[in-house]
């Protein structure tokens, strides 16, 4: 072999070793980082899927008022209009996740965080909310008010 040939032979052997070393370092890093990154991600909690809750007796909800009802782990707002009609919406503002409230003086659903307003059909009518509130179904059985997810 010529000197040049030997040099090339050594170079390719060195490259081979470099790749092996580099590859091992990357593999090692991946083996260390993967469990750490996976650990940072909180596991999904096995929640019981709630489809319907009993909100209470019809008489407990005054006309022209709103009440926050616990629906699984989410808040739902039950509004009784001045006409006496019961309507339920997700109480989570579609803007930035605050919990809305019923405003008697405005006759509207209002979010205190960024002054978002929804009408009594849950439609976003003013302020920053980008979408209407999700509508829940209200069923009255005898005296009791039930709220369930709309299909």
């Amino acid at each position, binding site marked *: 072999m010529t000197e040049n040939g030997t040099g090339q032979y050594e170079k390719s052997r060195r490259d081979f070793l470099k790749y092996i070393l580099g590859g091992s370092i990357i593999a090692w890093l991946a083996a260390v980082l993967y469990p750490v990154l996976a650990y940072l*991600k*909180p596991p999904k909690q096995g929640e019981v899927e709630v489809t319907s809750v009993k909100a209470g007796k019809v008489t407990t909800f005054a006309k022209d008022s709103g009440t*926050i009802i616990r629906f699984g*782990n989410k808040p739902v707002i039950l509004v009784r209009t001045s006409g006496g009609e019961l309507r339920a919406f997700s109480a989570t503002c579609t803007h*930035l*996740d605050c919990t809305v409230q019923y405003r008697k003086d405005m006759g509207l659903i209002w*979010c*205190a965080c960024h002054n978002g307003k929804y009408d009594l059909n849950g439609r976003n009518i003013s*302020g920053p909310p980008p979408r209407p509130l999700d509508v829940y179904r209200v069923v009255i059985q005898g005296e009791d008010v039930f709220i369930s997810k709309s299909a």
Partner: protein
Amino acid sequence: MKPLWKRFYDWVDERVQLGGLVEFMGKKYVPIHRHSVWYYFGGVSLFLFLIQVVTGILLLLYYKAGEEYAFESIQFLMSKVQFGWLIRSIHSWTANLFILTAMVHMFSVFFEKSYRKPREITWITGMLMFFLALGFGFSGYLLPWNELAFFATKVGTDIAGVIPVVGKPIMIFLRGGPEVTGATLTRFFGFHVAVFPGIFTVLLGIHLVFVQRQGMSEPLHEPAEFEGKQKTMPFFPNFLLRDLLLWLIVLNLLAVLAVFFPWELGVKADPFASAPAGIKPEWYFLFMFQTLKYIPAKLLSMDGEVLGILLFAFAGLLWTLVPFWDRRSSRGEKSRFINYIGLFVVLYVIVLTIIGWST
């Protein structure tokens, strides 16, 4: 016989050769000029950080993280523990003053263009510490688990969630789940007392070593005014003593604020209550909060929120990288453009903070 401290000094000196260090400190001078007063704000910020470390450790002796304990433990701290109210009040007030003095420090450095070559790294570490300070504020705010903090955290983390692609995973990571719960509190507690202080201390170390090694920056236009005869003051002990005097005054101010305007605890967080009327973020987030109110829900087929957040992120990035695009200052030329940008930012922040505060 030599005095005890001298013998101790010699004992250490013999082993680690302190001579070079002492000589270095002896040769350190602080330039005196019309703008020297701004040099004090870095030192005051450092002092306030030290107070946070000490009072933070004291609070740790009684604080219990967790949905069921956090609020109650602070209630206990403030009502039963001797001077518990004082320690907490000082910690809260110092947090606010720290952000204020850090802001003054940042803007003074910006207007003096002290970030220019060769002090780019000092500026970058300073900016990173400033962002961390906001993180400290945001995470610490949740720890008492009161109503205001609960909704502030919901909104703040939801804002992270609207960033395209990476937003949702970041939000889940911050909250420790899809909602703000006790899991969020645990994570924020960890960030606040371990992760952030650790990173902050490293950045602070680099920042201070660089300031010591490179000395104080001088305003671009000053040397000419003095025709090369720069007035200076030795750092040890002249400047340091002035620093210490100011620190003492600041400590007194803190005591007055903490005693006469004690920090409220508020109402315990209830995930099934409406957000209270008049809810507002801490003052240092107000200008962003107020801006988000003005951006319409939809803009250029984008959610207005997303646009606002991306704009703020972009502005923050540009601000942090100013040493790299302000070429004129690095060449030692005046750059009025930078002053206009700085002035605009200061006015914008002040005006929107006032509007946010008063509405």
